[in-house]
């Protein structure tokens, strides 16, 4: 422990100039970004250029800091000063990780808190969201930087390696997303990837510090990347159908609600006008089936709706992958491979459909009185724009808007000074994940279709998840040709 702190102190002394530069950039961001929230600064181009610059510079400074601190006691080669000195590798590794946490992550977190403070919300309330955000950055960025630094000896080499990493990811993921048509995301994709990457890269890092076997570590990192792409292909793109399907079925159990069902109306033919859309995507043909979801309570909302189906024709069977469901206008849009249509020869086929979804129930509403600036639930703050006519409410949340929220208020058609007709308005905001930029807040302008006047009560109703379910529908005979979109 003492050796760790001793090495840490040396590193901080050695890199004080770089750390000062980093601090300056963070302070600049903490001042400039909140300035950009002010609508008056919308056309302040120098400010926006500065912010873009900071968004690029700060990750570069991360790379610089990680490279310099890890390379100060490089793990690569056999002429380093420290390898014939009484260093315990555990002390060395913990010293570098401590540096990372104390000098890289902590100042960044403080900058984030400073910015959140400037929205008017309490940063402590947003701590769990902040921790999740930091964890994601840690796994994707900081841990990767540290692992690559541990298998390189100079900053130039590390930079080249990072370029190679980025190119690999971009190339591999584009290649993998080859199959046409939208796909369902694996239910726990980010958790699986996060743990996979985090644990394996960390293990490789520890291995490299313990054994200084650079060749093996480099191979391990490349293998992790390749397997990751494979994993991504399987989970996200659903390329291994059977286990994927089985898992989805388990995660979305058959619905026990008797009133909720899928219904097929053989008498109606939905509009086959593709409009601005396509009628096919490469080998997939688009069809609209007259299928509706019935029995859903009006206040319930459904998230993550996905549909899969099987087609059975004489001598031909097809199982479709899970795809996001498009159930508007009492019709379901599906993608059928050309081969299936050919196998059907225009005759009827047997079709079986499954739909999965997550219920979202409205929770306890909260009513807030509008003012120039007012706090709203879920770590948010709203401002009334000075215009006081038209859509004049802009809300800003710390890190994310976690759950879908319904907003209702009485809005004025004209301005608030001479109020004319008030009408009630309802808007639903979808959940918004954190941005990938330095700005720790997400801005959501409200579109209530009228001005909210100061003093008006606004009601916020968050939605809460209420369980997964699956619905099955069997259609013994259906002629697909009738429903093809043109």
């Amino acid at each position, binding site marked *: 422990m*003492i050796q760790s702190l001793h090495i840490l102190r*040396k590193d901080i002394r*050695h890199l004080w100039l770089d750390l000062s530069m980093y601090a300056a950039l963070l302070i600049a961001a903490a001042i400039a970004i909140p300035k950009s929230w002010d609508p008056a600064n919308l056309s302040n181009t120098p400010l926006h250029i500065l912010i873009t610059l900071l968004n690029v510079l700060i990750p570069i400074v991360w790379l610089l800091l990680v490279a310099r601190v890890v390379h100060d006691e490089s793990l690569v080669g*056999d*002429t380093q000063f420290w390898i*014939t000195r*009484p*260093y*315990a*590798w555990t002390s060395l590794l913990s010293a570098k990780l401590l540096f990372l946490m104390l000098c890289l992550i902590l100042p960044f977190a403080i900058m984030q808190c400073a910015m959140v403070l400037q929205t008017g919300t309490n940063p402590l309330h947003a701590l769990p969201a902040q921790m999740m955000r930091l964890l994601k950055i840690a796994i994707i960025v900081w841990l990767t930087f540290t692992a690559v630094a541990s298998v390189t000896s100079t900053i130039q080499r590390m930079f080249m390696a990072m370029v190679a990493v980025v190119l690999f990811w971009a190339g591999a993921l584009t290649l993998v997303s080859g199959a046409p048509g939208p796909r369902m995301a694996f239910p726990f994709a980010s958790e699986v990837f996060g743990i996979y990457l985090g644990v394996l890269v960390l293990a490789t890092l520890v291995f490299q510090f313990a054994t200084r076997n650079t060749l093996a570590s480099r191979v391990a990192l490349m293998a992790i990347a390749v397997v990751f792409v494979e994993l991504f292909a399987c989970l996200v793109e659903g390329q291994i159908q059977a286990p994927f399907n089985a898992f989805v079925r388990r995660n979305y159990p058959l619905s026990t609600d008797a009133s909720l069902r899928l219904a097929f109306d053989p008498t109606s033919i939905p509009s086959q006008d593709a409009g601005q859309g396509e009628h096919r995507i490469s080998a997939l043909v688009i069809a609209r089936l007259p299928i509706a979801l019935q029995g859903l309570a009006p206040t319930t909302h459904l998230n993550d709706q996905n549909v899969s189906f099987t087609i059975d024709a004489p001598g031909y069977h097809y199982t479709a992958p899970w795809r996001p469901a498009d159930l508007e206008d009492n019709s379901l849009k599906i993608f059928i491979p050309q081969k299936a249509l050919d196998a059907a020869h225009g005759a009827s086929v047997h079709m079986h459909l499954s739909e999965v979804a997550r219920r979202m129930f409205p929770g306890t509403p909260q009513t807030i009185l509008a003012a120039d600036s007012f706090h709203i639930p879920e770590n948010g703050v709203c401002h009334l724009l000075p215009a006081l006519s038209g859509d004049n409410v802009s809300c800003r949340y710390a890190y994310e808007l976690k759950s879908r929220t319904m907003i209702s208020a009485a809005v004025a058609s004209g301005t608030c000074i001479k109020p004319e007709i008030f009408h009630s308005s309802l808007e639903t905001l979808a959940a918004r994940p954190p941005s990938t930029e330095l700005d720790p807040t997400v801005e959501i302008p409200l579109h209530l279709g009228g001005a909210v006047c100061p003093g008006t009560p606004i009601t916020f109703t968050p939605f809460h998840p209420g369980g997964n379910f699956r619905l099955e529908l069997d259609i013994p005979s259906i002629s697909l040709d009738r429903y093809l979109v043109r």
Partner: protein
Amino acid sequence: MTTAMPAIETHGLSKTFGHTEALAPLDLSVPRGAVFALVGHNGAGKTTLIKLMLNILRPTHGGATILGRPTTTLTGKSFTHIGYVSENQELPDWMTVQAMMDYLRPFYPTWDEAHLLSDLDLPPDRKLKQLSRGMRMKAALASVLAFRPPLIIMDEPFSGLDPLVRDELIKALLDRMSDEYEDDPNGGLTILISSHDLAEVESFATHVAFLHQGKLLFAESLATLTARFREVIVTLDPAMTTSAFTPPITWLLPESTASVYRFIHTNAELDNFEQQVRALLPHATEIRSEPMTLRTIFLALAKSSQAQDRSRA
């Protein structure tokens, strides 16, 4: 020297890089208290051998022990007893000399800087990267002598240094040896120095080993080595012709004219040394044998090995 376990011992230790055998399997023993000179031309394998001893490289075959423990089990802690100085090793260039000493101190429980920096005439506030090559070596040596290790390994410490600096380095080493001698006359301090030029070390070395192209030609005490090597000059009677003969394997680099036959004898302690010579050179009128310095022995061995390699090729 004690008869206790040797400071360093190797058994069939060898190292191959790809298809090149950098070190053929060798057995070596460095006794405690020895000043062990490792001689060989550049590329002979001296640095490879040293790196194997310090677990900087892993052996391809065989093994070695250092201070009683297998080299492959050397931990960070073992280096509190081993000092390593090498012309190739990096130093924390951004630190000043004193800053480096201060930084290293907590790593070593036996640290005692005393007057090392002033004895070696080192400017404590100068950054290491601003020091000349000689000063850097002195600084490196200071950072090793300061924690009084019982084993010091030096890889080409004098290479490229001017005589004044070499002198200072040697004096510092001898001082340390005297310290150690005063504490324990039965020898605790072992020094291993590798070099391709041993003029300085010859006066206080106790053992020498000679590496040639990865092979250990010999390893023995300096006393026996200098006793058995003699430059022999035989004056021949010009009136008689000498019949051709194959010189024995102990005769190196034979040269002859009509009146002189000269060679290097590698086993001149033979009782029947003169008889052996006369038996092969019956017309010898005078046999003179001169002792050789370590440098001339090394030169002769290097030339002889070269000649052997050429004749084999």
